């Protein structure tokens, strides 16, 4: 019999729609009063999609899987598929409605940027703080503090209060603490999205190393299929709370990418966005429509007009937009940025975006939409992101005198044509 380090057995988690916040005593009385008189609940929330308030909603639906020591398991799925709920259950933040989870050893979650950090404390103090929150003893941290500081690349600022740190530095520090914790199971939820490329690479390498050498088990959640490919040796795919795949990485990614095969000209974004802002985001992306298009299949070189619907929580005038383009297989192609800042103010709730597909080769693509801010240090702050924002296909034009594009040989991007001219006066 194989030794499992983590076993998730028929785990379901049920939430009640609309009961997300706490209630007040008055509401409770009003509800009781209405009930006694046979009236409709006055505190019922309206307009919450199709779901009636109080209707059970299964965030996880009989999910079962088991993980061996030293495995690096990737967890993928669309927004709202239940990934975060699953991680919350495994890290004991809440309990499952039915089913059970068994695990051996300590679980360390790599905390999101800033959580567990107190901004008035220095980097060094926060290392102790964060380590203790993750269950380390003071003595353990004492032994490792120099390694942690060195790994974090923050040694210069280690005695400065964390409130002066950039978000990238916070991630580095948080990651360093978690990476040096002797936990048997390590959970990483999309944390590497912040932080520069070099550090991301370093983190992934470290993770692979500790997993191989020390036999640590890693649960990694990401929308970035390339990091999944690099780190994980197995993936599970969640779709609407159900486990739809458990096994090979490439098959899993293919299932995830194909989960929304129908290319709709209108994308609705639910409540489940990935946000990494420290405060409440000023805007939320709601919907995307392709203007005057019947399908999301575009002829090569077409300029597509997209209408982006959003909700303004607070006016903001310094937000930038970018589309991160990937092939249907998840391979990154490139990114298009907005030329100027977007102004989100007043009563308008849509913007028009012209998206030029000139440099895309025929094939299927998806685009993640990211709204972000940038600060003077060149760090970005993610405001809202939808992964994926929309999917589309580029169809080939009738070849005039060109070859038919072969993406398998020439790649997903077709760059500007070479300009060839003959130097005047040269002897041929």
């Amino acid at each position, binding site marked *: 019999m194989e030794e499992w380090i983590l076993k998730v057995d028929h785990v379901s988690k049920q939430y009640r729609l609309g009961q997300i*916040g*706490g*209630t007040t005593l008055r509401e409770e009385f009003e509800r009781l009063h209405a009930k006694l008189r046979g009236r409709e609940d006055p505190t019922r929330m309206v307009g919450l999609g199709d779901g009636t308030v109080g209707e059970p909603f299964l965030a996880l639906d009989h999910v079962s899987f088991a993980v061996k020591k030293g495995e690096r398991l990737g967890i993928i799925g669309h927004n709202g598929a239940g990934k975060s709920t699953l991680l919350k259950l495994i890290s004991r933040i809440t309990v499952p409605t039915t089913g*059970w989870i068994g695990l051996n050893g300590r679980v360390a979650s790599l905390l999101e940027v800033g959580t567990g950090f107190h901004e008035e404390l220095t980097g060094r103090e926060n290392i102790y703080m964060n380590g203790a929150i993750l269950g380390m003893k003071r003595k353990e941290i004492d032994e490792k503090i120099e390694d942690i500081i060195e790994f974090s690349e923050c040694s210069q600022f280690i005695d400065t209060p964390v409130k002066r740190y950039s978000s990238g530095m916070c991630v580095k520090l948080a990651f360093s603490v978690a990476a040096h914790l002797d936990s048997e199971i390590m959970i990483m939820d999309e944390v590497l999205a912040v932080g520069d490329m070099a550090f991301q690479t370093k983190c992934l390498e470290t993770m692979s190393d500790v997993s191989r050498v020390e036999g640590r088990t890693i649960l990694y959640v990401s929308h970035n299929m390339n990091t999944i490919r690099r780190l994980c040796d197995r993936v599970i795919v969640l779709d609407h709370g159900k486990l739809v795949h458990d096994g090979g990485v490439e098959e899993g990614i293919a299932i995830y990418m194909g989960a929304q095969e129908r290319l709709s000209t209108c994308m609705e974004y639910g409540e489940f966005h990935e946000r990494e802002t420290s405060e409440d985001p000023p805007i939320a992306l709601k919907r995307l429509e392709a203007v005057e298009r019947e399908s999301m299949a575009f002829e090569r070189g077409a300029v597509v007009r997209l209408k982006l619907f959003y909700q303004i929580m607070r006016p903001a005038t310094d937000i930038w937009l970018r589309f991160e383009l990937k092939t249907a297989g998840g391979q990154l192609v490139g990114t298009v940025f907005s030329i100027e800042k977007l102004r989100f103010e007043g009563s308008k709730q849509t913007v028009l975006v012209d998206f030029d597909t000139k440099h895309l080769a025929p094939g299927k693509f998806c685009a993640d939409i990211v709204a972000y801010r940038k600060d003077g240090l060149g760090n970005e702050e993610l405001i809202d992101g939808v992964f994926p924002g929309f999917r589309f296909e580029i169809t080939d034009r009738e070849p005039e005198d060109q070859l038919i594009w072969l993406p398998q040989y020439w790649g997903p991007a077709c760059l500007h044509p070479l300009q060839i001219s003959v130097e005047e006066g040269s002897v041929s």
Partner: protein
Amino acid sequence: MASEMEEQGRMEQQFGTVITSKRRTLSLHLRETLQYRDLILLFVKRDWTAMYKQTVLGPLWALIQPLMSTIVFTIVFGNLAQLTTADTPGDYLLPEFLFYMIGNICWNYFSTTLQATSDIFWENGDLMDKVYFPRLVSPIAAACSRLISFGIQCGLFVLLWLYFLIRGGTSIRITPMLLMLPLLVLQMMVLALGCGIVVSSLTTKYRDLDMLVDFALGLWRYACPLAYGLQLIPEKYMGIYLLNPVTPILTTVRRAVFGFGFFDLRAYIVSWIVSLAVLLLGLVLFSHVERTFMDTI
């Protein structure tokens, strides 16, 4: 159903930790909480640093608050209203200032601890949503960090007390009852922590209770012999009056530090029973909500 599955699982393999929806009335993770004592210390340190960082006076603020209220009490209740400060009949000489000060210091510790612990889930929700640690760590840390301010205030009180003791001319005496002080402080902590976690457990469902806490503490304050001595209370109401668990604590503290005053063993024991009962109720409620409060908060 869950427990059946759990047993099945146990049959296959032993797991160190099993997470199910199964509830036990009182699962406190006391041993685990003890393992996290470093975290308690760090939380205390964090509260302390955060409270006074970038303030000019720093920890001196801990002294200003009780000093101000003591001065106000001396003027309003002592000089204007001329309320008695005697707990028992008889001619005892006691500086009013000391009388009001010890009451204010104790009440201040009790009420700030209660306030801090009653808000624990909402205050730490961000952190608790991201990472697991024994939830009891937070209220314990809150109670301990208030103990530091309490200690500083007591230091000032001791200086004044010594001054009056050495100068003489008062009825202050040193008695063996001084040894009871640690027990009294512990009782204040137990009672405040108990009340605080009862409220905090309920606030996960009813946020209004939060608003009620300040109000209730304001009223409670006047039901305690802070601004007046026990002699003010008519004999026939004394039985009911002593049921307030804070009253015997306060009078016993005064008896201990001044060497004279009111001490009723029965009332004191009842107050301990009430304190422990409240703490137990709090712990039961706490262990009930700590597993799922993150779903509602």
